[in-house]
């Protein structure tokens, strides 16, 4: 770490000297530039960050701010279903399909950035299931995960018990890492039943995380940093946990082994336990969402620092280019690690929640698992904090 820091400081100093020497004369004509043009090129960091983190009706093309890859807009307006290309709505254009007129709501609208139907001059949000950038990225990830896993399965079918090499070998290593490292030790005899769900979740999150780090077309969508995606995943874990839970699990919730005054006549423990059923998936949702969104936000912010500093002085902008670039690369590498860790943590916690609902006897192991779980939950927010500290 210190070595890296020293390297960065050296680079910064060198860049400062170089840029001030070259840019000082060049900065002079800038001062006389047209104020209107300056206004147009002014950077609004917040807007850029939220645009990158959020969803969109088209997919950005690198180096081109005017064209986007058009994606289908599917809305249920006042007079039924409408399906048209998002290219019709580019640059704030209105589009009339049949009797309905649609437009992407402007900055001041409460539905900012979403497709709205104009009814009697008012904006109304239709029922919107458009294939947005995030949905398209989701489909791509599904195809990748499904394709790779079916490929691996077909490899096994063709070459019985032969170990795959290279790419498929790496996929298999991940499968055994999760299956033998997390699922089997935690779920024991029940692992065959739940492994398909847990492994699907792991690889799906992993691919979505990694695809989010690729900045151009097939990637670049901030999927796992979108609360809708993580919400659906944790709702699935919630459903699997509670639908397949055994009698013991429900007994622990509604009549736990505690002194009677804790559960009757005022059901203190019951309230806490029922609350716990819902906090577990909520923690899953927020952990994955916050970690991935944080990673994306930090990289974008570091990149934006270049423009913010350039607005102050070109010299500082030039210097910050080097620093920002170095830090962005560093952060992206950390994000690769975080992508894996978060997929792993989500799978591990899902496995634990499911395992707790499968517990047969209230033995010593159950306490142990619960203690581990609490430790893990306590460590959750901390990891996010340390990440931020790392960045500072």
């Amino acid at each position, binding site marked *: 770490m210190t070595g890296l820091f020293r390297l960065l400081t050296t680079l910064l100093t060198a860049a400062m000297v170089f840029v001030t020497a070259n840019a000082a004369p060049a900065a002079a004509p800038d001062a006389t530039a047209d104020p209107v043009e300056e206004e147009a090129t002014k950077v609004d960091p917040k807007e850029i960050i939220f645009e990158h983190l*959020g969803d969109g009706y088209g997919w950005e093309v690198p180096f081109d701010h005017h064209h986007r890859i058009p994606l289908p807009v599917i809305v249920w307006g006042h007079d039924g279903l409408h399906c048209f290309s998002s290219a019709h709505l580019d640059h704030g254009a209105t589009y009339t399909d049949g009797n309905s007129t649609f437009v992407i709501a402007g900055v001041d609208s409460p539905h900012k950035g979403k497709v709205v139907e104009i009814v009697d001059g008012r904006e109304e949000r239709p029922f919107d299931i458009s294939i947005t950038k995030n949905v398209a990225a989701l489909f791509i990830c599904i195809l990748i995960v*499904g394709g790779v*896993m079916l490929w*691996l*399965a077909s490899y*096994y079918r063709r070459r019985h*018990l032969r170990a795959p090499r290279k790419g498929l070998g790496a996929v298999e290593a991940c499968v055994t890492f999760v299956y033998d490292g997390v699922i089997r030790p935690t779920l024991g005899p029940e692992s065959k039943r739940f492994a398909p*769900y847990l492994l699907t979740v792991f690889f799906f999150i992993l691919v979505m995380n990694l695809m989010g780090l690729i900045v151009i077309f097939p990637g670049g969508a901030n999927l796992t940093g979108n609360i809708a995606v993580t919400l659906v995943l944790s709702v699935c874990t919630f459903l699997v946990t509670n639908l397949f839970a055994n009698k013991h699990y429900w007994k622990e919730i509604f009549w736990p082994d505690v002194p009677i005054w804790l559960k009757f006549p005022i059901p203190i423990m019951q309230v806490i336990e029922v609350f716990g059923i819902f906090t577990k998936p909520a923690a899953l949702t927020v952990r994955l969402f916050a970690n991935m969104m944080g990673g994306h936000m930090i990289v974008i912010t570091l990149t934006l620092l270049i423009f913010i500093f350039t607005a102050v002085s070109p010299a500082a902008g030039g210097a910050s280019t080097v620093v920002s670039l170095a830090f962005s690369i560093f952060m992206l590498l950390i994000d690769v690690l975080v992508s894996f860790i978060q997929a792993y943590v989500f799978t591990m916690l899902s496995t634990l929640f499911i395992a707790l609902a499968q517990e047969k006897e209230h033995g010593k192991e159950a306490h142990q698992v619960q203690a581990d779980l609490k430790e893990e939950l306590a460590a959750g927010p901390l990891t996010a904090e340390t990440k931020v500290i790392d960045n500072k």
Partner: protein
Amino acid sequence: MELFTPDFGLIFWMFIAFGILFLVLWKFAWPMILKTVDARADLIDKGVEYAQDAKEQLDNARRQAEEYLNEARRQQADMLRDADKMKTQIIEQARSAAKEEAAKVMDNAKLQIRQQQKEAEQQFRDRVSEFAVAIAGKIVGQQIKEDDAQNRLVDQLIDRMEKTN
């Protein structure tokens, strides 16, 4: 904050897409993958066990062979020692037998010598008594009749002489 309000469209598609992915993989991929991974792990375990067994057996065999070899060496050494012992014994026996034989021969010889000595002595005595009688006859002037009484007397005299000597 738009980031914290989940978008319905995305939730809808996410449910469908994830559901399809799960069902497809659950039906076509995971059973095969997990079965193979498990089967291969078992196979490897079995292989390791087999190799360990084989190694143990090999070690056992090697140890046994070594034991046999040592046993054979010990037997060889025993046999050599026995042979050596037998050799010295035989030589010893032969030597003692020879000694005995020699002693016997010597004894025989001594006995014979003593016998001959005795015979010679007897002859000498007979001659001496003959001479003594002849000498005495001449002295007395007449032929002393040679009879047993005279001979006995001479013998007695000689015995007395021997005793006094």
